[in-house]
């Protein structure tokens, strides 16, 4: 699978897909999109990179182990739900803050951090499965 064309294109494609996955993730705040689909896009980006350059290159590129990414995402998601204990409302209630960034009001919510958590879980879990499958093909 490592033709010259594919190997040349793969890094750009990976970078673009990851960028797009973040766009889809943030868009999911108010419009169709969200953490799950964004995570899938990012995981397929890593899979493409892995097909082109091998699994070891992907592992080097993402530095931490994919399952650790998934763990961090899971933790973020649960914590987003637990924050509402301080507001006196039930688990998973969406809480909003409106900080002002350079004069623009940015609405942030626990809903969003939950979605980021979902994104990380999907990226981590699917990447780790994809890498495991690609690794087997090599030996």
């Amino acid at each position, binding site marked *: 699978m490592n033709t010259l064309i594919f190997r040349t294109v793969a890094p750009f494609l990976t970078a673009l897909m990851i960028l797009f996955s973040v766009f889809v993730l943030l868009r999911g705040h108010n419009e169709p999109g969200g953490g*799950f689909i964004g995570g899938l896009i990012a995981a397929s980006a890593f899979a493409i990179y892995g097909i082109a350059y091998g699994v070891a290159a992907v592992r080097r590129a993402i530095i931490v182990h994919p399952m650790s990414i998934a763990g961090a995402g899971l933790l973020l998601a649960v914590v987003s739900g637990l924050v509402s204990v301080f507001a006196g409302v039930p688990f998973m209630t969406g809480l909003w803050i409106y900080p002002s960034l350079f004069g623009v009001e940015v609405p942030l919510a626990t809903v969003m951090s939950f979605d980021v958590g979902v994104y990380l879980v999907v990226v981590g*879990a*699917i990447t780790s*499965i994809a890498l*495991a*499958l690609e690794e*087997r093909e090599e030996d």
Partner: protein
Amino acid sequence: MEFVLACLVGAFFAAAIYLLLSRHTVRMLLGIAILGNAVNLLIFTGGRLTREVPPIIGSGLDTLTAGAANPLPQALILTAIVISFSFFAFLLVLTYRAFQELGTDDTDEMRLAEPKNDPLPPAGY
């Protein structure tokens, strides 16, 4: 329209069960994938098929427009798709490993855990 979809669901189930009855793990895997889709289609049909408005609150509005579709079955399907997708990914890895380790994809020959010549317990000392 419900009738057509009901027939389709039936066909999906039939294909899934046929594949699941196979002895070969890869076919069983395909059967499981089709079974998951059959169920999703079933829930989708069960949530009524309408040509009504998608349940999205338009900008400048507070409530859904009248006659909007019921979003809940779709939400259920989405969850089910996610779950069946992750299970399918796991089973794919497992089947592949099983083929590598056991050297067969025939379930009749997978008798490592339950050997054919397992002895009976002794009747006394």
